[in-house]
């Protein structure tokens, strides 16, 4: 019953989306307003129906409606309330609903915001959005239907993947998908620009804030994913260059490149072709990411299911790429730059270099991810690419990007004079060198760490220099200090929002560097009462207790941690779920600004007399999450509506 209702609504939504896409396209072509309005109504209908599907599935989860197969496979009577909600998008079928719903939501926002004021581009953008939405609804009907009957209705379901029983599961997929789907809007406008031949800057200005929003959510999704990996998976890391992590990271890299290169186009009328290509690439990579996660082509810890969905996604990816690149070819002449690069020492070239590095990083990650496939196809030899490859190639790229982060925003447009360079960079460079020297004096012997310090200090000082100078200028015209600073942030919110985001990235870079360079770990077996030592901390094993939870059974170890004085008790556990063959480790940790204590439970004796544990002291990891907060503030500042300069 529930299943049929949901399936019926999905079918109608699909029909409406197809109709809307065609109506908007024909309306735009023949300039018939009525058709475009009709497409808007269709979009509204799709949104209402997908919302209803989503609500219906959630309701089925909450009421344990096992007549729906998806509910029966992803929940059971023991699943707590909270995870019955997150379970809705915990597996393939539900994740597609969430995806479609967000896409429908973005379509509605697009209608509300751009219906008036972007007359030429808007109908084509709407048609593109609805076309893409139609594809996801098609997936929902044929390849991964969330509403399928389960007969006979089982008394209990199988249960959610225990690794997904985590608070991060409400935010991580939501943020990530908001980011993924968010890039559809710039793509849709880019397509509209190509179709109409209005390749000027209009589409860029229209999508500027959309891009920042999408970029921000993607960043947030990646960070939360790292946090989830860190505190749930129990290997003490937050990033493993897993194919699926890479899948989300690639559009982030090209999206970041796009965010920067649009500024050159706005200012200098250059890089039109490049910007269009970056948008196509970014959107293509979001589809590729979805394809990777769901096709089963590349094995990964993110074991989503497989089946016909892979073929469907691949065909759609082919359709999108061939159409988009075909349009680029069609508009080739119009895409040529008007401006030219005047000098190598200029803001344009700093931004260009930033773009080259970002795209190179994206290419590296892409190459490493598909290399196993490529190698087998070409040579018949199976090989794999591990973390060392990604690190070796990307670390120098990222370090250079951090450095450029300091150069780009301050160096002059067109051609930087020596005076401009000295005025802007004398102090930052000097202090950067001092920072590296200080690090060396304090006993840092890793070249990479010293370089990272130097680069981050350099960038931080450039930001400080710029901000102080601008504040001083305002003080000179008689403003007092705080209003001057506040006014700067709000009036030039895009610029200073960008700076705050840069600060966030710097903090993240320090955290990543610190955790790689200085974390320590050990693994040991302790008898009850025995103590292990690591990095000045003592961990005493106090014993094991068994606890029965609503949907699993767990064995909890108690370890008293001290460094001279007792700091507290950490309780890592092993959880045994009836639906899983292997127990799931539950990490316990104590976060700190300088270092985290991190305990993972291994094997144990049944009588509780001994236990194997992995101890880690992870350095500076918390700064990654702190950097995430700073980045959030910066992104919020950057998307505030622009104020017109009145004073």
């Amino acid at each position, binding site marked *: 019953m529930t299943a049929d209702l949901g399936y019926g609504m999905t079918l109608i939504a699909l029909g409406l989306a197809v109709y809307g896409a065609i109506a908007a396209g024909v309306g735009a072509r023949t300039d018939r307003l009525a058709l475009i309005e009709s497409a808007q109504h269709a979009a509204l209908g799709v949104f209402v129906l997908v919302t209803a599907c989503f609500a219906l599935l959630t309701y089925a989860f909450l009421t344990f409606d096992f007549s729906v197969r998806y509910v029966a496979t992803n929940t059971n009577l023991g699943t707590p309330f909270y995870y019955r909600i997150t379970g809705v998008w915990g597996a393939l079928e539900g994740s597609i609903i969430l995806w479609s719903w967000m896409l429908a939501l973005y379509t509605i926002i697009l209608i509300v915001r751009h219906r008036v004021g972007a007359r030429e581009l808007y109908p084509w953008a709407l048609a593109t959005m609805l076309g893409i939405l139609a594809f996801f609804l098609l997936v929902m009907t044929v390849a991964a239907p969330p509403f399928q009957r389960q007969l006979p209705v089982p008394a209990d379901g199988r249960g959610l993947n225990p690794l997904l029983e985590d608070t991060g599961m409400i935010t991580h997929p939501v943020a990530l998908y908001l980011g993924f789907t968010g890039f559809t809007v710039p793509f849709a406008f880019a397509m509209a620009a190509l179709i109409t031949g209005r390749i000027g800057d209009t589409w860029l200005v229209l999508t500027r804030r959309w891009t920042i929003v999408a970029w921000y959510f993607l960043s947030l999704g990646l960070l939360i994913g790292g946090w989830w990996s860190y505190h749930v998976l129990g290997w003490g890391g937050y990033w493993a260059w897993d194919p699926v992590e890479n899948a989300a990271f690639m559009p982030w890299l090209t999206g970041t490149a796009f965010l920067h290169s649009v500024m050159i186009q706005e200012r200098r009328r250059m890089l039109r072709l490049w910007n269009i290509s970056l948008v196509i690439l970014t959107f293509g990579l979001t589809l*590729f990411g979805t394809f990777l996660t769901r096709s089963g*082509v590349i*094995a990964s810890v993110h074991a989503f299911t497989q089946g016909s969905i892979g073929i469907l996604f691949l065909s759609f990816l*082919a359709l999108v790429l061939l159409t988009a690149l*075909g349009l680029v*070819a069609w508009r*080739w002449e119009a895409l040529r730059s008007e401006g030219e690069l005047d000098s190598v020492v200029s803001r344009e070239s700093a931004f260009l270099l930033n773009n080259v590095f970002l795209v190179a990083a994206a290419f590296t990650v892409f190459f490493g991810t598909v290399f196993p496939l490529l190698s087998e196809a070409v040579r018949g030899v199976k090989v794999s690419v591990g973390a060392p*490859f990604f690190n070796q190639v990307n670390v120098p790229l990222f370090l250079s990007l951090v450095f450029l982060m300091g150069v780009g925003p301050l160096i002059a447009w067109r051609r930087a004079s020596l005076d401009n360079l000295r005025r802007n960079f004398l102090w930052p460079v000097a202090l950067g060198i001092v920072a590296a020297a200080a690090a060396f004096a304090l006993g840092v012997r890793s070249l990479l760490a010293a370089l990272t310090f130097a680069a981050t200090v350099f960038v931080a000082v450039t930001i400080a220099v710029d901000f102080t100078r601008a504040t001083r200028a305002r003080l000179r015209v008689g403003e007092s200090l705080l209003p001057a600073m506040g006014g700067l942030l709000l009036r030039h919110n895009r610029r200073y929002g960008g700076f705050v985001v840069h600060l966030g990235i710097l903090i993240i870079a320090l955290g990543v560097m610190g955790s790689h360079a200085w974390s320590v770990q050990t693994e040991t077996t302790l008898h009850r009462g025995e103590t292990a030592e690591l990095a000045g901390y003592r961990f005493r094993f106090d014993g094991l207790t068994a606890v029965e939870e609503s949907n699993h059974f767990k064995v909890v170890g108690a370890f008293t941690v001290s460094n001279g004085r007792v700091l507290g008790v950490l309780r890592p556990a092993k959880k045994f779920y009836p639906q899983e063959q292997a127990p799931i480790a539950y990490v316990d940790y104590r976060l700190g600004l300088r270092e985290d204590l991190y305990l993972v439970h291994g094997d144990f004796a049944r009588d509780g007399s001994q236990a194997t544990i992995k101890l880690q002291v992870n350095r500076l990891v918390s700064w990654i999450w702190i950097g995430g907060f700073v980045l959030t503030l910066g992104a919020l500042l950057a998307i505030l509506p622009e104020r017109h300069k009145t004073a």
Partner: protein
Amino acid sequence: MKRLWRWLIPLAAVPVLVLLAYGFRLSPRDIPSPLVGRPAPVFALATLEGAPLELATHRGKVVVVNFWASWCYPACYEEAPVLERNWRGYRERGVVVVGVDIQDKREAAVKFVGDFGLTFPVVQDLKGTVSVDYGVYGVPETFFLDRQGRIRVKHVGAVTDDVFRTTVDRLLAEAVSP
């Protein structure tokens, strides 16, 4: 005069799409190896301590060649104790375990061996030639060689006690041909 070559731009996407389509023909978890039944590629590499190790010298024994890396979590971390335990249990009966560390840093590999207290010989395949010879797709992969030096079983993923014992027992039970 219109330039026709620009229509070649969309073709740029084709190789990638073809490659991905090719991916459907494979299942990464189930990898048949054409090497099963063939003589195992021999190699001579240095162990982590610097001693030379030649595979050929172990002819006549049942050899377990395990490809691993310190960055391969969790599978390599799961199987390391299993390999060590079974190596200790079987070494008296003419079984040799050889670890081949690939795409790794020396310090990380030494630390891994120390952390797990591995006592079987571990060599580093710095140039990756041995991994290529064995067609290693990802770590961990384990090859079980019979006394004639032929690859008999290829195991992908972490080795369990069960896999190790059944395979090695079977190979030990085979008559030794002259």
